[in-house]
């Protein structure tokens, strides 16, 4: 039970961090190396908003501040994402290596900006009272913070699914990502869709940042700890498939925890990485692939 909960918890954190990437990388094919820094911005947004409200409202402000910061973090990273897409990424579509280098440069700038503003020492977000402690089921103790993150992931996943598959915008977004030229030929303004899609992906990274702020101290490199796992989850699941990202995150999360119990944390990471490399050599398109009947049928 304990193993299962730890696996679910790690999977949910990887999934939350991967959701935004599933959109920017999975759908738009932009290798956004600054994705981790959007998480860092989200985490620092929680810290700033919580401190502001704590100053104004006292201790109760800290609790309200944290929950409010989730929405604000989404808005802040959404806007920064929109700006980055307009000024940099939009000029590099179809040039994957160039966009990788450019966004890596942006990530370094954002890290340095964070060090300049907040210093090199890590800062802490106070866990809201309602999320302190744990629930005991049998012999297993379930941390409230981890349960909250699992619930937050479920909400985000549901919202992303609804946006992608049940709205007019989602349909346009999928059309542009599947075939940009053809989508334009259906009267869709692909520039607008590109910008909004990238911004939403960035916004989700901001929300992920708020959740990791509950797990430890925040510094300029906090997002970097998650970036490898998130890319692996998206690629393993099959680029462009939301369900694939969910499965990819789950496989990485559960297998990491499973191997950790048998070996050590670093050995477990190496084993998981090795398994994924072997799997991708056999099935380079990941768990889910897009099928289409060709001509001449």
């Amino acid at each position: 039970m304990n193993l299962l909960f730890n696996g679910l918890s790690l999977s949910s954190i990887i999934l939350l961090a991967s959701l935004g990437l599933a959109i920017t990388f999975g759908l738009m094919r932009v290798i956004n190396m600054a994705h981790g820094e959007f998480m860092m911005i989200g985490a620092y947004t929680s810290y700033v908003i919580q401190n502001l409200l704590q100053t104004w409202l006292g201790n109760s402000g800290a609790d309200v501040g944290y929950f409010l910061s989730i929405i604000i973090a989404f808005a802040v990273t959404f806007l920064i994402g929109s700006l980055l897409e307009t000024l940099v990424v939009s000029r590099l579509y179809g040039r994957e290596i160039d966009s990788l280098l450019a966004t890596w440069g942006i990530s370094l700038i954002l890290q340095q900006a964070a060090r300049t503003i907040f210093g090199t020492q890590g800062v802490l977000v106070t866990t809201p009272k309602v999320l302190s402690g744990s629930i005991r089921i049998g012999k297993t103790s379930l941390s409230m913070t981890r349960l909250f993150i699992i619930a937050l992931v479920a909400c985000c996943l549901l919202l992303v699914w609804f946006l992608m598959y049940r709205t007019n915008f989602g349909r346009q977004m999928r059309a542009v990502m599947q075939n940009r030229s053809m989508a334009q030929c259906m009267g869709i303004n692909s520039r607008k869709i590109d910008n909004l899609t990238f911004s939403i992906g960035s916004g989700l990274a901001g929300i992920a940042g708020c959740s990791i702020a509950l797990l430890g101290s925040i510094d300029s490199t906090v997002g970097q700890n998650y970036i490898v796992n998130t890319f692996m989850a998206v690629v393993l699941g099959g680029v462009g498939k939301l369900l694939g990202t969910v499965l990819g995150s789950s496989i990485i999360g559960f297998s990491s925890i499973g191997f950790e119990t048998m070996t050590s944390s670093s050995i477990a990471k190496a084993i998981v990485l090795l398994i994924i490399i072997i799997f991708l050599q056999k099935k380079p398109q990941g768990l889910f692939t897009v099928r289409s009947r060709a001509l001449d049928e």
Partner: protein
Amino acid sequence: MEGAVNGMLKIEQMDAYYGESRVIPGLNLQAKKGEITCLIGRNGVGKSTTLKSIMGLVKTPTGRILLADQDIIHMKTYDRVKKGIGYVPQGRDIFPQMTVQENIELGLQALGGKGKVPEYIYDLFPILPQFAKRKGGDLSGGQQQQLAIARALVTDPKILILDEPTEGIQPSIIQDIGEAIRRVNKELDITVLIVEQYLDFVLGISDALYVMEKGSIVLQGRTKEMDPRKVQKMMTD
């Protein structure tokens, strides 16, 4: 040169480029209102590039593309669609992961995402409602072609342009596709411009014919006045 009033679509002295290479030099072509015009030629002579130029998918720095007298050459692709050009590309380019219904409804984007799919679409292609929930990529070639035409018609076009609509389609289905194009032209009063290589299909369906070689028009005229053997010879030489 005839007055633009007869020309639903008129291309004047248009150059088209792939990168720095000029692949179409100074093209002149006209699709008259209410007619079916065909552009034929061998592989690689620039037929599809001509249609892509009309859609704004290829660089066209010079010349004019007049749609009902309005020059659209510098417009974005999605604005050209909103002005009234429906496009059925070579290979259909169905969105494979979307359902048939979603593919069709995408055409409503040209109308601001509002409105409903007109009933005549399902009247023209009765097979589509049966497969509404099926993924576009799972349809056969002929069914995909019907879907591609339906999707373009939902954009409420003044002119429908089709790139090799018979490519990879069974002969029996080609007849159905031809009949649907005729009905679109006659019953819906939509001007049609087709790029094709299948000469029998072209001779049976078109009012006017253009033959292209190396990016230029080398023969043009009314289809019924043309000598099929001469056209065939130009296609095979």
